[in-house]
């Protein structure tokens, strides 16, 4: 049993069904409708990639799932919990089961790498002593190959390394779900491939379920069990890489060409 499993303060009660279930989700900004009756289910251990043009609402979608944005209508169930019915504390506890990798990494630039990883642990695992925190931080950093950076500042690291650290921070609470917002954007093809491999490795090692937003088709091919094409705020198509790559629909073909 890992440190985080051992010391997790509250285990959420959930069913054996999908880890994320989104029904008829609507979200708009002013008069612009971004998500329109979007429904999707993410099963345990599965990885769904969301494809869509810029501004199609992909980031809005995962921000609604984690509770950073409030849906206008529809329901979101995460690990069996209806997000709309949770109070602030319950939402925070639920979030300890979800890792979120931001497009911009969102590392706290005034803190060291150690403090970046320690930050969520102090919130959720405040019974841990210094040695246990350090042990778990080093272990998580080792999993992304960057244990030696523990006392460095984020600004001292390259873009690829910052992405790995952001991934380590998303993993530090051993989440059951990871949401990736364009994990390979701004990276060169080699680093992008490394990050994609890391993501699949993590999925196997931590047995996580994930939703990945990406425009990087090599990353999509490498990581996706299913691909959802988001168009006009709706799920336009859903299928495996092989299924969608064979499609003759112009709206789908343009991503695979």
């Amino acid at each position, binding site marked *: 049993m890992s440190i985080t499993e051992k010391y997790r303060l509250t285990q959420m009660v959930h069913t054996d069904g999908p880890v994320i279930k989104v029904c008829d989700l609507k979200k708009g900004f002013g008069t612009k409708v971004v998500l329109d009756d979007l429904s999707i289910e993410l099963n345990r251990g599965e990885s769904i990639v969301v494809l869509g043009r810029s501004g199609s609402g992909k980031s809005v979608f995962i921000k609604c799932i984690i509770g950073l944005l409030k849906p206008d209508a529809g329901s979101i169930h995460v690990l069996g919990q209806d997000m709309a019915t949770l109070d602030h504390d319950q939402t925070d506890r639920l*979030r300890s089961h979800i890792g*979120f990798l931001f*497009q911009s990494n969102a590392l706290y630039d005034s803190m060291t790498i150690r403090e970046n990883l320690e930050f969520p642990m102090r919130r959720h695992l405040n019974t841990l002593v210094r040695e246990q925190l350090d042990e778990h931080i080093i272990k998580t950093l080792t999993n992304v190959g960057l244990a030696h950076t523990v006392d460095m500042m984020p600004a001292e690291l390259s873009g690829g390394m910052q992405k790995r650290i952001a991934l380590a921070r998303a993993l530090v609470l051993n989440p059951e779900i990871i949401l990736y917002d364009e994990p390979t954007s701004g990276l060169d093809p080699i680093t992008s491939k490394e990050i994609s491999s890391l993501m699949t490795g993590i999925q196997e090692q931590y047995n996580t379920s994930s939703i990945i937003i990406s425009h990087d088709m090599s990353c999509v091919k490498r990581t996706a069990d299913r691909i959802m094409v988001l168009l006009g705020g709706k799920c336009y198509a859903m299928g495996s890489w092989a299924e969608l790559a064979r499609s003759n629909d112009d709206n789908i073909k343009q991503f695979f060409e």
Partner: protein
Amino acid sequence: MTRFIGRYLRELVNPRYEVRAFIHQCYTIGFSSLALIGTTGFIMGLVLTMQLRPSLIAYGVVSQLPVMVSLAIVREIGPVISALIFAGKISSSIGAELGSMRVTEQIDAMEVSGTNPFKFLVVSRVLASTLMLPLLTVLSDAIALYGSYLGVNIKGHTSLQLFFSDVFDALNYGDVIPALIKTFFFGAAVGLIGCYKGYNSSKGTAGVGLAANSAVVASSLAIFIIDLLAVQITDLLGLN
């Protein structure tokens, strides 16, 4: 802004308290302003003394110099100048820091980590600036009076003991307490405006600059408005 202040007051009293963040901010906000406010205070006391001296000589009341300088510094110039310096340094720094955190999604990352970013970032900073400015003002006043003592001795001679004896004879609680109370409001205004501008910044990196700039302008204006209100209130209470 009203809703922001309301939320601040609500989060201020609700547990959980971010004690570590608050102590860190007290150090950052208070200690980092020490040298600047101390230097300004010293120059303020010295210059005020040298400017007043010829006028007082002309009226034949140069012996009243410590009295006049101490009243001016303690009641008005010390608190206001310290607050303006504080606003220039702290409000802009808070505005830029929080604005940058907003733009780079660090505030969202805190929320996702299960931390209340408002409590962690805003409450700790506003509370620290509310408590640090009065302390800095007291220090600035003391240094300004010492500067004044040196100013008196440039063209005359007064012992330190005699100078401060005149100063303390001239001052009473009605001079010190209202001046000190208003610095709490100055500090709160500086912290609140800096946090409000930074926390709600948008428009990317340009928004960060805008947040820092508008935080200083709005804080400085707020200081004068609070000062005006404070003078009216102390007048109504018969403390002037």
